[in-house]
């Protein structure tokens, strides 16, 4: 149902033309400003990159213990909490480890992931993080969009966040407070959690 709302309009407003001219003036201002200043907020993406905030939820990675094994113990908390049901874990028994359980397989279907970060919140072992800053998550096949354990474990070695690399190369354009010498990604070897 629509209710007619009576707004008083002056004669000039009812003529429309002055109002149209006013509108035209506003858009022209924008157009000319942008023509001469070229200061649109657009980031010309593949050539320039925005550095992601620290809490940006990028691609998932699996953290490792000092011995290189994944911290994950296949407790399934993340798989349980995931609203997109995109985490598939197959648990197995690790005979040599004091921590008996480990994920034989750990897959996240990034096509279904909604980047809510619940999995990170749920993890009791700090085993999964989304702090890679990687937002270019793409592939040519659906299969490749399913990130597996090996991929997510090595993610930080093979692929540094692209934005960081860019600003390290162009330090003068880096946002204030960006420390190019330090990896924004927290070391994976800290003994937190275990």
């Amino acid at each position, binding site marked *: 149902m629509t209710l007619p709302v009576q707004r008083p309009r002056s004669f000039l407003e009812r003529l429309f033309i002055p109002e149209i001219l006013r509108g035209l003036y506003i858009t022209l201002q924008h157009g000319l400003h942008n023509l001469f200043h070229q200061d649109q907020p657009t980031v010309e993406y593949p050539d320039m990159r925005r550095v992601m905030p620290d809490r940006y939820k990028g691609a998932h990675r699996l953290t490792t213990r000092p011995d290189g094994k994944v911290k994950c*113990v*296949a*407790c*399934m*908390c993340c798989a*349980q909490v995931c609203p997109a049901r995109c985490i598939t874990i197959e*648990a*197995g*028994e690790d005979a040599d480890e*004091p*921590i*008996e*359980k480990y994920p034989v397989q750990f897959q996240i279907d990034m096509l279904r992931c909604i980047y809510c970060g619940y999995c990170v919140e749920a993890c*009791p*072992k700090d085993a999964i993080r989304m702090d890679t800053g990687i937002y270019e998550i793409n592939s040519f096949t659906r299969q490749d969009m399913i990130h597996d354990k090996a991929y997510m474990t090595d993610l930080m070695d093979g692929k540094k966040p692209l934005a960081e690399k860019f600003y390290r190369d162009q330090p003068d354009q880096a946002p204030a407070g960006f420390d190019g010498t330090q990896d924004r990604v927290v070391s994976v070897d800290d003994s937190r959690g275990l």
Partner: protein
Amino acid sequence: MPTVKINGIEVEVPAGTNMIEAAAKIGIEIPHYCYHPHLTVAGNCRMCLCDVEAGGRGPDIACNMQARDGLAIRTDTPRVKQMRKSVMEFLLKNHPLDCPICDQSGECRLQDYYMDYGQYESRLADPKVTKHKRQDIGDHLVLDAERCVACSRCVRFGDQITGTGELRLFNRTDHTEIGIFPGVRIDHDYQGNLADICPVGAITSKDFRFQKRVWYLTDTDSICTACATGCDIKVCHERNQVFRIKPRRNDAVNQSWMCDHGRMIWQDLTSLGRLLQARVEGQVGNTDAAMQTAVETLQGAEPGTVGVVLGTQASNEANWALWRLAKDALKGASVFWCQGNDPGAWDRVDDLLIDADKNPNTEGVRALTRHDASIGDGADLAHAVREGNLKTLLVLQDDVLGRLGDAADGVAVLYIGTHRNGTVDKAAVVLPAAHTVEQDATYTNRRGQVQRVRRAVHPAGDSRPAWQLLDRLGASLGKAPGASTAAIAFKKLSAQVPAFADMTYRALGTQGLPLVAPQPEAQTDQASQEHHEPAK
């Protein structure tokens, strides 16, 4: 019967009932670890402490308070709450934070009660006492002493149920540690029950280890069909896949226990010998074509040369359907049943649960034979085959050819069953039947308890419940037994066979009902053929 008062609510219970059970009767849950209905009362966990209002003294443990007139307890006072909280704090003092890797999590009493009575803020200053983890104590068990709450259920089980007594609580105070005597392994047939009764994750099952988080599983009530005992079970499954089987309490059948063999029957669902497709002369094909061949074989047979063999491994419904098929659609066919195990059957026996008879439905078929005296037994069958009177045999899940050996050469066998056996290899037509966890049906155990199985997963491959196959076969032959669903089949069975009189699926419920005792005057077959209501 004494009347007791719990939280001000009066409840009348049989003498000798303890307060945990009495409270459960009116829907009040008293948390407990060490109490188990089928073990003696130990009273050592103190979780069930309650305030005694009248008829007793001080806070007392509910598991050891027997109902007597004038007894009144409260479980809702602040003091009870504080006591539970304190008990929890003690229990968890040295408890490892293993939940992420502990198979118990999701069905752990520590977790459950912690949510209700947890301390939440740790007051722990000293390092935890560590104990032995991941000990191999049996073929089916893993023991993690750190997780134990020293309830002694497992100790009592060993002492009182199996009588083997391998486990003990060693040391004292917070160094109390569950352990097994040196050099001993648990090797009885009831190991899985230890994992079940352990209220926490100290004893867990090796077979289920890390297979699945329990909260993903759906439970379906059923019974075990590995032997004639018919232990009540629940089938735990997810997405059409069974992950484990656990016993279900039925005081008339198995109390709370089951054997390790029964726990693994779900593996038969996908075992190599499983019949997933119909066969004609050994050639795998589709069910319709095989059914057609079976119909043609039966119709082409000379009258009087057709026999059907009831199966003691098949359900009441399937046997009833086959019996009706023989009476209605295959006029003149003789009906037989063979008692005793198939060749090559599992051979463990004991006096606790495992029965020598490995057929889950011997009593059900026997009830049919009591009703229809014309059903011949195994000797009659062997005789008839040897005489050459039988040219075609319709067999329901019974290794007939394995029993008869070469004598049966030249007999065309139509077989309905779940797994490969001596008969399948020589049968003319094989129709794949659904496994017990794949269908709705009833079985009658050695004590005559009629119990239901329920469909937990879809029938594998092309298999269908045997009663359904028989119904279709009957329809093709001209007269279907009328088993369009299991419930309808059972209703007709109970109407026709007095031993099942007045039983329905609803009445059977989760615990089953005993067979009706045989009437002094035998029912004639003719009476039942007229489909009138049996005499009450």
